[in-house]
């Protein structure tokens, strides 16, 4: 067979094979090194600041818009059928289960995933990653673990904030556009949301944190030479993280429904 004609599928398949193999190795290294001294708390707190505090405005805007637009659409759509009283419950459960975690994670994938991949990629190109190794320290501990841990710690918190703001947005639109009494809206949200709603969204956010941080670190470290590769790595990080979040969301939703039924 002509070696220059690669079958698109085999090429794609082998790429995926290397990608998941690489992720596996990276995670394995993190587990191997993560529990050994020294622990770099200062690097972790810096990353928490970078990932969390700096992303907050973006998350607030996203959450408020999501909640507002959902209240509007549900409200106008259900008005004909006299379903307005159901708006609080619908908005709340959609936000808690889906929109809060997914949109927050997608925004973080864009912002933090791109940041991680390009920063690590540039460090590889300028030999700073080699320098970390040459000075007798581990890039896994210095670079990878603080970023993954920061995402794991911060994303659930951001999701919680996002849930709150999203529902507030819904309440506002419910009041101004649909004429639902804010007190009634608040009561309905509290009464109808169950613990399953919270836990499903909260549980997902840990997975999403990994979907963002691990591939981003991986693609950053995959850069060999040249600034051009940094751009490629950044693109791949954002696309991969977003896809993992969206596809993973389906399976995680399914999983959490099964767990809930079980309980």
């Amino acid at each position, binding site marked *: 067979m002509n070696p220059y004609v690669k079958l698109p599928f085999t090429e794609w398949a082998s790429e995926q094979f290397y990608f998941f193999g690489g992720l596996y190795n990276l995670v394995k290294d993190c587990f191997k090194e993560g529990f050994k001294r*020294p622990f770099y708390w200062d690097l972790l707190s810096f990353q928490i600041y970078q990932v969390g505090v700096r992303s907050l405005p973006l998350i607030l805007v996203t959450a408020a818009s999501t909640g507002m637009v959902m209240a509007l659409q549900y409200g106008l759509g259900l008005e004909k059928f006299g379903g307005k009283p159901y708006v609080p419950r619908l908005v709340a459960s959609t936000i808690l289960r889906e929109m809060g975690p997914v949109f927050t994670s997608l925004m973080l994938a864009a912002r933090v995933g791109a940041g991680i991949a390009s920063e690590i990629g540039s460090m590889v190109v*300028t*030999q*700073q990653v*080699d*320098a970390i*190794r*040459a*000075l*007798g*320290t*581990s890039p896994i501990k210095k670079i990878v673990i603080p970023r993954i841990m920061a995402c794991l710690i911060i994303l659930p918190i951001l999701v919680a904030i996002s849930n709150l703001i999203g529902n507030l947005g819904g309440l506002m639109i419910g009041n101004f556009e649909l004429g639902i009494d804010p007190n009634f809206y608040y009561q309905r949200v509290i009464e109808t949301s169950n613990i399953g709603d919270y836990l499903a969204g909260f549980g997902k956010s840990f997975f999403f944190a990994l979907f963002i941080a691990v591939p981003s670190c991986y693609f950053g470290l995959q850069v060999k030479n040249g600034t051009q590769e940094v751009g490629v790595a950044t693109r791949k990080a954002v696309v991969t993280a977003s896809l993992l979040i969206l596809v993973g969301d389906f399976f995680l939703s399914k999983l959490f429904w099964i767990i809930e039924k079980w309980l």
Partner: protein
Amino acid sequence: MAVIEVQDFKKAFGKKVVHDGVTFYVKKGECLGLVGGSGTGKSVLLRSLIGLEKPDSGKIHINGADATLYTEAQWLHVRKKVAYAFQGGALFDSMTVFENLAYPLEEHTKLTALAIKDKIFKQLDEFGLAGSELLFPNELSGGMQKRVGLARAMMLEPEIILYDEPTAGLDPYNTKKIQEAILTLKAKGVTSILVTHDMPTAFAVCDKFAFLKDKRIIEQGTIEQLKQTPNSMINQFIEGQIL
């Protein structure tokens, strides 16, 4: 005793063979000048000596121990004693000069903050960098970046230092500074390998030379020994001509 010993070292990247049977050794306190054209694999060879690259086959001995099959964790220990001075400095660009120099000390020593500060200011003085401790790497000239990189590599007082073109692209002032630093360390008994195209510096500091060409070391020895060789390329080199 040979402090660094490389036997039949082979390394390829994909189909591109870079080294095909490189053999040499460096004795304690010696400085070996590693010479070869651009792209002959000098950096790859140095990187292999601290485990940044893995050989495909062959043996690497460091301080008498077989380091060929060391894991990354084992190399981390070796690297406290073996320093690598990167071609471009490889400074951490999110840290100041001071923080760059403090890095190895904070990682590997139990010195107090005061003692670390003391050591760093001494080192800055020695490398003609006094006053630049609060600058970031992007605020430094290329020559200064290289000097900071060198200063950082030497903070832990290593037994072995690998210099990757430490004077390439530098003005005479910076070249002289670095030459002096290398000679000072050599006087302290440090073993080293110097990769360079800068012949005056090489002749000033190296005890012997190894020539890398066509994936192998084609000739090695002291200047006196090399004068006897019939290889015209090496003769030209010894006479101080451009390689």
